[in-house]
């Protein structure tokens, strides 16, 4: 029944997409389409929420697709959890777009693909056989690709979408091979059949590698992340929010479904691989983000960091599970899933905020913004909550999932293998480092964009954004706070999904007195977001009251003090680049080969002094440039083959045939 409802929702999305193809140019279509998708998303989200509670597996088989296979769909607690995340994000994005979408110059390029994209993401999570899964996956990739290319006049977007489509097809190809290995010679394509037949050790390793490439490239694991910071910002902001906040989570779902569910018992060193990748991803992601001054690109790089944190949780799950420590594995998986939920909320919120800034000023570059807190106070408040949440500050939600991850790390001396013992503390240090750097990064993002004085006319003339956008942003900010102060309910909601993967889950949290969360035991560690929040609120109001009674109430407005020599021009403020300079000098010289060159003209010369900063993307240079270079080289060489005479073609074919026959003869 729930599967049928969700499939009807998918069909409704597709109908909306079809409807909008013809009518996109009409003025009312935009509102109708977004209202419809918001409504459908709400229905789907509520259905998924019920499935999460009922924790039973529902399946449905449709006579579509391959004739002997059909298309099977299912919904268990894990899919239900991800469906909630997906549809919550899509509902918010649709509602946000009710206001934001009005500014779209070419809605006919966005509307049909938007609805189809939502259908694609739901289908991936619903799929119950390899064929349907891959079809839905590719559908999701292609529709999102079309959205990246919505504003196709700018050369930057063309490059972004080109790299995206290459990486996406490569990823799907890897997943195709992974499913091929899972299906085996007998051709088990249904997930139930795959689950019943575990591949042998060598094939399992190959499948793990292929899934890391396929799902990892979609999620943005370093070094497969290169397309993500290009493609996510290129799309319209509500689509960026979906791609960053939701589509990457579908990729995480694919990883969990295949590696933790279908693949069978893990070997211990899989944990090492996934942990290492997660740690590197989180650290590199945040360092890249710190170097950016394009707001949306900064947010996109930050998605890379958060994916790293999620994969650290998943790596710990694999490690604990391989050692049979199911309770701890449940803790690690809960932490990862909690972070999936959190990230989908605050990253969408931040992208919505950047969209509001984009409509208000037409700028994505932080160096051209500043002082927006005066012109857009409500957006600024919601954005600030998102920034604090993503920087893992208590009492908001980002802190809880990182706290759970730390708790899982602290239990890892129980692991018996040396490789794990050595890598886990190192990954813990990376996680701590990336959490601290994330705070630095969002001080920069918020400070440069919203605080200080306006750096350009556009920033000076900004207006507060529309009501729909504000309502959605405030809703998500409220969820950030609620999930932070009442984390026990979220953990309990995740429990069925963890149960289905690991056969165990964290202790029930809602029954703990005072609504604390206690991962293992009371005397070991506990955290109570509600009380922390109340304490902060009470002591802040107490001190405010005391100050009000005791202290002078006089306020005088005066020009800024600035050490006695105030400088009128807003250009003398710290910029995004100068803010990041100390961190660039500490970390960037090694990782980005950052070089600064200061050029000061000699006395008497009136030329301005110049500072030049040079950053290199080492991963691109080392990994991608050689590959694309060698492909171009080979293509050039093989180009000769297109201009042969008929005799030479015949000789070529004959030669190829002989070589192949010889090969077969020798191989047999």
């Amino acid at each position, binding site marked *: 029944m729930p599967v049928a409802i969700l499939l009807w929702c998918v069909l409704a999305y597709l109908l909306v997409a079809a409807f909008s193809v013809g009518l996109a140019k009409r003025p009312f279509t935009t509102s109708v389409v977004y209202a419809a998708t918001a409504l459908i998303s709400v229905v789907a989200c509520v259905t998924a929420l019920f499935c999460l509670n009922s924790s039973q597996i529902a399946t449905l088989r449709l006579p579509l697709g391959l004739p002997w296979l059909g298309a099977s769909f299912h919904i268990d607690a894990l899919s239900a959890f991800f469906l909630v995340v997906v549809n919550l994000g899509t509902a918010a994005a649709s509602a946000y777009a009710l206001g934001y979408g009005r500014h779209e110059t070419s809605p006919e390029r966005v509307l049909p693909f938007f609805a189809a994209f939502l259908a694609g993401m739901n289908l991936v999570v619903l799929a119950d056989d390899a064929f349907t899964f891959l079809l839905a996956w590719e559908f999701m990739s292609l529709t999102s690709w079309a959205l990246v290319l919505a504003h196709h006049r700018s050369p930057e977007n063309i490059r972004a979408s080109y790299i995206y489509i290459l990486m996406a097809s490569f990823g799907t190809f890897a997943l195709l091979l992974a499913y091929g290995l899972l299906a085996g010679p007998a051709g088990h394509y249904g997930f139930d059949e795959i689950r019943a037949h575990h591949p042998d050790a060598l094939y399992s390793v190959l499948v793990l590698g292929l899934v890391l490439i396929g799902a990892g490239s979609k999620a943005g694991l370093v070094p497969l992340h290169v397309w993500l910071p290009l493609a996510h910002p290129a799309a319209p902001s509500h689509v960026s929010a979906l791609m960053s906040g939701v589509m990457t989570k579908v990729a995480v779902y694919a990883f969990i479904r295949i590696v933790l569910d279908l693949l069978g018992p893990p070997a211990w060193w899989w944990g090492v691989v996934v942990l290492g990748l997660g740690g590197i991803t989180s650290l590199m992601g945040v360092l890249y983000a710190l170097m950016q001054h394009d707001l949306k690109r900064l947010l996109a790089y930050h998605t890379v960091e958060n994916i790293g944190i999620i994969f650290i949780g998943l790596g710990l799950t694999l490690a604990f599970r391989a050692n049979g420590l199911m309770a701890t594995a449940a803790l690690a998986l809960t932490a990862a899933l909690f972070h999936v939920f959190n990230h989908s909320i605050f990253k969408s919120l931040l992208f919505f905020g950047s969209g509001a800034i984009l409509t208000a000023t037409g700028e994505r570059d932080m160096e051209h913004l500043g002082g927006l*807190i*005066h012109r857009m*106070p409500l957006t*600024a408040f919601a954005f*600030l909550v998102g920034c*604090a949440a993503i*920087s893992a*500050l208590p009492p908001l939600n980002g802190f809880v999932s990182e*706290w759970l991850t730390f708790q899982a*790390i*602290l239990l*890892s*001396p129980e692991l018996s293998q040396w490789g794990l013992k*050595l890598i*886990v*503390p190192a990954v813990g*240090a990376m996680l*701590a*480092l990336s*959490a*601290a750097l994330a*705070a*630095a990064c*969002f*001080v*920069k993002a918020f*400070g*440069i964009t919203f605080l*200080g*004085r306006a750096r350009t006319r556009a920033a000076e003339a900004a207006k507060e954004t529309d009501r729909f956008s504000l309502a959605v942003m405030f809703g998500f900010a409220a969820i950030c706070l609620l999930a932070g102060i009442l984390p026990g309910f979220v953990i309990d909601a995740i429990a069925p999904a963890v149960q289905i993967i690991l056969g165990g889950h964290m202790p029930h949290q809602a029954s703990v007195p005072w609504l604390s969360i206690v991962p293992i035991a009371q*005397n*070991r*560690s*506990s*955290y*109570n977001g509600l009380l*922390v929040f109340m*304490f*902060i609120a009470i002591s*802040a109001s107490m001190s*405010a009251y005391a*100050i009000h009674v005791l202290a*002078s109430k*006089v*306020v*005088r*407005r*005066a*020009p*800024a003090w*600035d050490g006695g020599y*105030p*400088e009128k021009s*807003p250009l003398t*403020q*710290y910029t995004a680049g100068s*803010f990041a300079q*100390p961190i660039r*000098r*500490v970390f960037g010289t090694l990782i980005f080969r950052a070089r600064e060159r200061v050029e000061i003209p000699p006395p008497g010369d009136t030329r301005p002094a110049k500072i030049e900063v040079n950053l290199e993307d080492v991963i691109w240079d080392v990994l991608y440039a050689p590959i694309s270079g060698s492909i171009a080289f080979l293509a050039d060489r093989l180009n000769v083959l297109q201009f042969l005479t008929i005799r030479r073609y015949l000789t070529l074919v004959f030669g190829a045939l002989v070589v192949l026959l010889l090969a077969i003869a020798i191989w047999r």
Partner: protein
Amino acid sequence: MLLVVLLAPLITGLIRKMKARLLRRQGPPLLQPYRDLSRLLHKEVVLAENASWLFRAAPYLIFATTWVAAALVPTFARGLLFSWTADLIALVALLGSARFLLALAGMDIGTSFGGIGSSREVMIASLAEPAMIMIIFSLALLAGTTQLSGIAQYMVSPDVGLRVTLGLALVSLIMVGIAENARIPVDNPATHLELTMVHEAMILEYSGRHLALIELAASLKLLVYLSLIVCVFLPWGIAPAAGAGIDFAIGAAAFAAKLTVACFGLAIFETAIAKMRVFRVPTFLGAALMLGLLGALLLFVSRGL
């Protein structure tokens, strides 16, 4: 809780006095910080023209988060009523929230001083915070808990012994404490020379009651770190959870003595050493981070060290 707030300026005054005496100066009287605070409270607030609501709300929130963090550290007795609300990791994160707000407030007016302060502060924090987390790892792995009262209890119990990890953690914690509280050699609390300011640069635009709150929060943070070091590494004399009146008296006396010793140590250290160049600070903190990591790694490899 109120007690720590009342005590905090005294510590600042004590350190100032000791430093002055070490330089053979008379030094300000011990109670000078209280006088400063009350004078600031009675002065008017001079707000910059383009200050936003964030600038005005930040001092209260900074003070509140620091205060909550201070309430989580056992000073002279172990049985804190709400110690289960948040553990050490949450405590560090709470101080992180305070710093996040302070760094934002520094950028609010849009002066280059504010920017320089915030930018350096987050650079220092980006290394000090992970180092702190690594220290917490070491302590938590030893004591089997991240609750501070649990750690303190473990530290007074006989099965602690002399451990390499604890030594590394202590050195690392002192280094982090110095950096976090803007003391010499990382930052100079007495300077107003533009190139050397970090903390002072961020609060340059504050005045009146706002400044008083931020100064109080800074003293409070110093007290938090001192009591953290004292509670974890010198736990002797701390009153048990269900102690009698005499236990608390002993605990309080011991706490006062320990704090005085710690202040004296800090004063000597600050007098003896010169301030570092800003870009040598990462080396200093990197060492703290590595020490912390080494300590945690030793525990992962062998529970006995």
